[in-house]
């Protein structure tokens, strides 16, 4: 009985540590407060990293207008397509010196302000 309890307890602790680790380092199980831009932000693989980048954007326009522009650009397509189209069309933004597709920069900026 006692041995079983120790094994069960150890297992529970390990599972907890793993869950916290996954939450902390992969974003799995992460839950964010709802924002008006969740339809867009859901296209990001790693919202925390995008937010870290977005915090260095210096020319943040009104977030709602940015989101509206992004929705128009992305439409029913994907961020991947919008980003590639931006690059082809020369619609580039600079964030902390990084040359980015405008849609990626806008997405990062929204993540930072969400």
């Amino acid at each position, binding site marked *: 009985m006692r041995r079983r309890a120790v094994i069960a307890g150890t297992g529970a602790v390990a599972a907890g540590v793993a869950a916290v680790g996954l939450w902390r380092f992969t974003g799995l199980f992460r839950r964010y407060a709802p924002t008006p831009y969740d339809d867009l932000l859901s296209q990001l693989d790693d919202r925390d990293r*995008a937010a870290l980048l977005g915090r260095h954007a210096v020319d943040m326009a009104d977030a709602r207008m940015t989101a509206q522009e992004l929705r128009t650009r992305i439409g029913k397509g994907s961020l991947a397509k919008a980003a590639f189209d931006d690059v082809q069309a020369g619609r580039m933004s600079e964030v902390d*010196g990084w040359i980015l597709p405008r849609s*990626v920069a806008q997405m990062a900026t929204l993540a930072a302000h969400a």
Partner: protein
Amino acid sequence: MSAFIDARTLPSGTAQTPDLAIIGGGPAGIALAMALADTRLKILLLESGGMNFDPAVQKMYAGQQTGYEPLDGDRLRYLGGGTNHWGGWCRPMDESDFEARDWVPSSGWPFGRAALEPYFPRAQSLVEAGVWTYDQGGNALAASHGPMLQVGKGGIYTTWFQFSKMRGDVLPTQFGHRYAQDLRAQANLTVWLNANVTGIRLAPNAASVDHLDVATLGPSGGAGKQFTIRPRYTVLACGGIENARLLLVSNDVMKPGIGNRADLVGRYFADNPIPRDVATMVVFSGTLAPYYANNRDMGHGTILRAAFTPSDAWRRQARVGGSLTTVEQPVTLDDVGKAAVATTAAALGVDASGARAWSLGCGLELIPDPERRVRLSLETDALGLPRVKLANTISDEDFARYRTTLAELGRQLLASKAGMLRINCTTREEWMKNMDWGHHHLGTTRMHDDPRRGVVDANAMVHGVPNLYVAGSSIFPSYGASNPTMNLIALTLRLADHLKTVMA
């Protein structure tokens, strides 16, 4: 068999009457002398130094400067001149380097690159940079030594440097040592070492060179022996600073200095600035062929290194200057950089799990600026010649234009899904923080058909003085970003052909 004569051993007052006097034994002077080997011209080459470095001679280069580096540190005053410490980087100038560009004030040569094409092969041979490869064959040759980074379609393309031979630990071709035997074997040539030209003396009507004053450095530091040379023709080939200095100090007949009626001698000085760590380039795959960050021996004497440069067409369209961006060393990204890579790569659907980053540096073309200038100071050297006072600057516009080029490179890397780029410099302080210089002294005796806009004409003749010519990069009216040595040698070989005609 010619002779190398130490002028200090000659009796004072020795006179010579060569057909041609070449002042300066650097790459231009040596290339010119050798190119005239097959003529009947009696040539005297006057070199200020000896065969090796001498601190007392070198000290005559000292002067004042602002915005630059010590003037006795970035040149070498002995046979071979600048090739005694050059890095061996070679690349022909681009077609647009020669064009009058309306977004580059005072730009434009009197002729296009086509005028130099016939002389490039011989110039390439003299600098011993292997088979002419560059952009004609660089991609194909490099591809057999590792995959090229795909930079995508756009204004920037991969270009190639070649290198003066570096065999093991042997430095690039040093013209003095490399060609000493050839010069000695040249029957129509005499080389005077330790012979300093202290004045170019015009005839009273200022229409021709009458004679040259020459002096040696005395054992106690002042003037030693003195000589008079009366050549039919003279070519000044002392480098971009000394060419201007000698014309300015020779002011006994033409008070502003020879060729300086339009107040252009010494103006428009330029170098190729080499700011380091200007950008960070991330390669998503993490692999970069070795010919990007290092010179790579491709066999058969051809050493290549890749660089990124704006095409002629895009330079015209985007109104940028010449630049050559090179990969320097691997760097580690900070957290924001990692976030930028992860976010962008994920958005583009690219695996960047093995991404690596490299620092980028560059060589830049400066916009011609008349206020960047060589003048004479009140101080004098051991022979009594006024020393030089150099004012050097870089405009914010020079940096802004290069920033446009870097942004285009960044866009293209994303377009090809090969990588991405961060521009590391925004403020002037950031650009200047890691600034090196190419020690390419350009522009101070600029070439233009109009005597109001140039010191020399398209044949490198000093306007109004038909028996005086200038050789070297001081006659470049606009500069490009390519290293000048191989180009100035081609230009000098062209001058040699011209002299064969006019002196025949």
